[in-house]
């Protein structure tokens, strides 16, 4: 089920009515939330709920054993079981065809004639998110960083909690499970702030991403031609805005919906396009994934505790795998590699050059960071390397006389919108929406809120899927 759909509005109203009706105990409310979460997921493809159940059962069992087992070998085996099941699902459903294609290409390259029929595999929605979330539980249990979930119900709800089930934020056990132990009820202000966040999230997704930006990005990346530099830049900038509004929109909706139930989810985005450098970017973009990769991949690989070379290797491996997490294609690996290289170069430069950041050089560095980020988005969006190569060449003004396919109106629309996005991120980089709202007169907030509702209603859209569902 999609947040930006009529069925979800009805679903949410029913869930909230049951949650706040004085007829259910807290345990019954949690059961109702769990059942609702399965319905939320199952209305997309019912059989794939079984994967969620298996993941839940295996990690519950592993966690239970890890809580009492002291034998190191056995503890490791329980951890490996959890990893095997979760990564096995991920490997089969997400990377099965990719591995097969590469295996075939490798055999062909060494002269062995082999043709494999692509496997007809459905990618379960949100599998990358919920497997990472459940794995964090067993890894934390193994490292004794978190306590075992008190009941199976609490654990199952942690794995399946519908607001963040399919596209995050990827929440750690200690941040979410403990919230299920005692009855939660949103205060009126929390509830209304949740509604406000849901409105903002839908506005970002339906109006900004789908209505104002996606068509331009789709036209440019689907053109199949060598494009004029202005067109290539317009398409890439449009995509940079689309993916931010799409994904941040989902996270904002998720946080808002959870808050309406009295559950607090962590922030996932903090105005990333005003980042000064790439370390800063990854502290602001998809925060729950970057901290996951830091804690469960980068640090175990050595982090910065074993010398510079090891640190750079750990950084590159983390970013390459981070790229692959986003999609089973080499273009995503290149996207991750570029980010890894940016991070390595940034650390090298920081050790040599010390700049005191002020408002003037800060905005220039943020602009430089954002410009470099746009080159990485090319590989993220392009389906083939040939497309990426053409777009990059056009963006670097290497292609002479490329074709003009983007209408002038759309160029102006994208540049105005993206400029506003960048300025907005810069102004907001050291504050939060909550702080700004607190300083805003109630009438002004109401008017802006009403206009957003109106624009969502007249944009309508055709219930486009969120981009990150495919990851």
């Amino acid at each position, binding site marked *: 089920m999609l947040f930006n759909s009529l*069925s979800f509005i009805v679903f949410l109203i029913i869930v909230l009515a049951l949650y706040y009706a004085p007829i259910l105990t807290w345990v019954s409310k949690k059961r109702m939330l769990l059942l609702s979460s399965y319905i939320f997921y199952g209305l997309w493809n019912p059989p794939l709920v079984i994967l969620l159940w298996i993941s839940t059962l295996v990690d519950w069992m592993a966690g239970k054993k890890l809580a009492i087992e002291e034998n190191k070998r056995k503890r490791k085996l329980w951890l490996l079981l959890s990893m095997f099941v979760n990564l096995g699902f991920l490997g089969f459903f997400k990377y099965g065809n990719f591995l097969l294609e590469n295996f075939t290409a490798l055999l062909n390259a060494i002269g062995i004639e082999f043709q494999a029929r692509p496997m007809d595999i459905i990618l379960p929605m949100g599998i990358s998110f919920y497997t990472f979330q459940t794995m964090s539980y067993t890894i934390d249990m193994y490292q004794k960083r978190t306590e075992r979930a008190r009941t199976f119900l609490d654990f199952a709800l942690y794995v399946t909690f519908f607001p963040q089930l399919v596209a995050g934020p990827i929440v750690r056990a200690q941040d979410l499970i403990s919230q299920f132990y005692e009855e939660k009820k949103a205060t009126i202000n929390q509830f209304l702030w949740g509604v406000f966040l849901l*409105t903002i999230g839908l506005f970002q997704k339906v109006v900004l991403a789908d209505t104002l930006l996606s068509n331009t990005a789709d036209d440019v990346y689907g053109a199949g031609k060598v494009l004029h530099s202005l067109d290539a830049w317009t398409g890439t900038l449009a995509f940079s805005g689309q993916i931010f509004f799409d994904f941040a929109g989902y996270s904002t909706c998720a946080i808002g919906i959870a808050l309406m139930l009295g559950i607090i989810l962590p922030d996932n985005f903090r105005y990333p396009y005003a980042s000064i450098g790439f370390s800063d970017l990854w502290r602001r973009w998809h925060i729950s994934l970057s901290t996951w990769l830091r804690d469960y991949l980068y640090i175990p690989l050595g982090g910065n505790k074993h010398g510079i070379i090891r640190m750079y290797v750990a950084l590159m491996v983390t970013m390459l795998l981070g790229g692959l997490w986003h999609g089973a294609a080499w273009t995503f690996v290149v996207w991750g590699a570029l980010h890894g290289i940016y991070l390595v170069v940034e650390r090298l430069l920081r050790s040599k050059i010390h700049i005191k950041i002020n408002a003037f050089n800060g905005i220039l560095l943020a602009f430089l960071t954002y410009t470099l980020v746009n080159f990485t988005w090319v590989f993220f969006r392009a389906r083939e390397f040939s497309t990426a190569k053409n777009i990059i060449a056009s963006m670097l003004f290497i292609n002479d006389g490329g074709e003009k396919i983007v209408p002038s109106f759309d160029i102006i629309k994208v540049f105005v919108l993206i400029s506003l996005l960048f300025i907005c991120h810069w102004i907001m980089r050291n504050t939060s929406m909550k702080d700004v709202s607190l300083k805003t007169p*109630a009438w002004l907030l109401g008017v802006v*809120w009403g206009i957003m509702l109106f624009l969502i209603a007249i944009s309508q859209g055709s219930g486009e899927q969120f981009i990150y569902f495919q990851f």
Partner: protein
Amino acid sequence: MNLKRSFILATIFGLILIVGWELYWRSQNRTPNLDDNKALWAQQWSKFETSNENKIVFIGSSRILFDIQRPIWKKYTNTDAIMLGVQGGTPLPILKQVLEDTNYKGLIVVGVAPDLFFWASEIDDFSWKRSKALLDYSKDRTYAQRINQNLSIPLQKNLAFYRDGNEEWSDDVDLATLLKNLRSGERAGPIPPPFFNFEDVHLDRNVEMSTKATQDSVFANTIIKAWGLDEWEKEIEDSEEYKKMQKDIENKRNKVISYFSKYAEEYTRKGGSIVLVRCPSSGKYRDLERRDFPREEFWDSLVNNTNLPSIHFEDYPQLMGLKIPELSHLSKEDANFFTLELIKIFKQEGILSNNTLQ
């Protein structure tokens, strides 16, 4: 911050804007209308797969969709007309799916619109893609999408500004279309002429030409312009480009006839029956069809290769001279007449039994 006050204000202000927006579009003579979207098509496909009623299936493109009126068909034949025509689509992938994935052995009426039917032999061809997209959606649609459609219908029926379509009509009033209409003379080439909605759609996917398109010739002319007949006509017969296009059409025609013959043969062997129907077109559209899809080389070749019963409107005097406001689809009144006459012809030709005609 007083969130309660902001929320109340937002609700009132948002509602005022939405109601104002609705009233504005109603004042502009826009009325609520259902969209012939993929969900509506999928409902017909689902009905086709599950219904035990006495039924006949119509496949083809928009001409069969506009020209066959389901209430007339039901009234005079006592059979349910399942309408699986696809606007801008070809019937070939639909026929293949019926053959391979269903047990249906009844009558299939195949509407043949030459430029869509004979010019799509591959999965990447325009009209093939359009039909395939609907089949894929029908197969893959989720329960959530089914619920969305059921919730969307009351909104489509009651709100003039609300749309849930897959076609991008130029007179849609969603934000994306309104912004698109602001585009003017272009760095990216000429803007295509506007393509306005000219159909009234019913829940059972019975589609009628709108009164405006029937009565307002200026409006009908905008639709004719959208067909791109002027550009089509400009293809000079001696030019290299034209020769290339002709060669392409010829290749595709041969493939289409070969595929269709194969599917039709398998279907009739299975016990089913197929009839080919060429719905009317007129004016410049018909002239260009004659020029680039001459009857002898296309329609007659298809009929001869398949040996299927066939009805070409030009072979029946009563089907000539009907009102085709935008040269390609019949007006509502003449679609009723055409449907009734077609039933009579079917009975005369033994395609339908006589006792079904009341």
